[in-house]
């Protein structure tokens, strides 16, 4: 057993878990943050993507102890109160989800993608970088549309902040 302490969605949290506990299970079971999903736990589907120290990570592929000391954002931490994050709003607007199982991971991957591409995104880049996220419902069509739209909004937001 190990003591684990980290910052999750802006809050300091700590807990004890077996060394073999996956980060995703720690989030879901110890912290009750069930927005992060487990679709495969073999690093294939991307349903478990969260941000660890600002980078998109498949939380089924990291041990909870390895994350101790880091700063984590999960899907629960993205919205600002009742105001959806621009990526969440775009998924809603463009019907980027059906059953919603892949959605938390898609949105966390997508926000990271936009952050890594300040120059903007095109369809081919979005599709290539979504390679680690599987969706069975949408055929990706509206997910790609939503990410492209959110990327526009987010860069406009940045420009406003800078101005």
């Amino acid at each position: 057993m190990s003591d684990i302490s980290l910052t999750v969605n802006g809050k300091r949290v700590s807990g004890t878990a077996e060394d073999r506990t996956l980060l995703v299970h720690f989030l879901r079971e110890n912290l009750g943050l069930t927005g992060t999903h487990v679709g495969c736990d073999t690093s294939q589907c991307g349903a478990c993507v969260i941000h660890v120290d600002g980078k998109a990570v498949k939380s089924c592929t990291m041990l909870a102890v390895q994350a101790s000391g880091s700063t984590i954002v999960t899907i629960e931490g993205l919205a600002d109160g009742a105001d959806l994050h621009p990526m969440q709003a775009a998924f809603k607007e463009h019907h980027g989800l059906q059953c919603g199982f892949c959605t938390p991971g898609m949105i966390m991957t997508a926000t990271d993608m936009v952050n890594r591409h300040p120059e903007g995104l095109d369809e081919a880049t979005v599709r290539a970088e979504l390679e680690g996220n599987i969706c069975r419902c949408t055929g990706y069509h509206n997910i790609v549309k939503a990410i492209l739209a959110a990327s526009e909004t987010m860069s406009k937001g940045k420009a406003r902040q800078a101005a």
Partner: protein
Amino acid sequence: MNYDAGDYAASLDAAMAAADYAGFAERKAAAAKKGKLRGIGMSNYIEACGLAPSAAVGSLGAGVGLWESAEVRVNAAGTIEVLTGSHSHGQGHETTFAQLVNQRFGVPIDSVSIVHGDTDKVQMGMGTYGSRSGAVGMSAVAKALDKVEAKAKKIAAHLLEADEGDIVIEDGALKVTGTDRQVPWFQMALAAYTAHNLPGGMEPGLKETSFYDPSNFTFPAGCYVCEVEIDPETGVTEIVQFVAADDFGNIINPMIVEGQVHGGVAQGIGQALLEGTRYDASGQLLTASYMDYTMPRADDLPSFKVSTSNTPCPGNPLGIKGCGEAGAIGSPPAVINAITDAIGITDIAMPASPSTVWAAIRATKH
């Protein structure tokens, strides 16, 4: 059972135009210059949905009837709860069913809630499959709305001292046609529950149930066109364009319908190109996880060109045919026809993986 209504030629024309079928020869020649094999494939499908007349499935040995049921509860405050036997696991019933009520009574969409999937509350349902939630489940809702409407008009006529036949429902109010006399929807609902002033002999309350048993299957149909480019050195097939043109009958929510087609097309392309289960000689499944079973990913697919035509289905009150399976039905033959066209063969096994395609190309050279 008869094919009832459909404009099959409209789908064919729409698909060929969207795919620029006429320009294919030029695109094929351009691809050949890059050393790629380009092919185009088409598939025209018709399917049986909206399952199903209970007597018909009974004669085929089914143990259940395939009707659906619905209850519409207008509350005293005018909000409306719809209890449906159809279940949503991503098909958007909460949206489309609420739209139906909104279109019918003009009440705000936020005042309508859809209750499903709770067997403590909902009497019974036969499931969401075979594109039956719209054609069968919503038809049950529509029938319950008919009963609510009839009673609401009686109450309004009584309150407005008018003839029941002169009452129309518009913009969230019940109006005496041709006059400015009206009673807002929520006031009529309150009157139904206070029961201070109802027509003689009328039961208080405003809550109605219906069962709907379809008289026929529905028959969505459409035309799908797929264009591929194959790298003959590797056997890798790229879908360069995909067009779907469907006749789904009446549509309540085009965005949700298109989403259903997108997902179906992706699944069909997966089936045609990537997805296959493999067993070893002892019967051990070798493709038991996503490590080995190839799900289509975003970069395996293009954006799709999707359109619909809308020949109302004569078999149900809403004219709905359904759209849930179409994408997955129409796409595999279109993809395979495109591949066989590109290679110049008549058949190839699914999934047409790179190794299968590469071997088929090699075989044409011997």
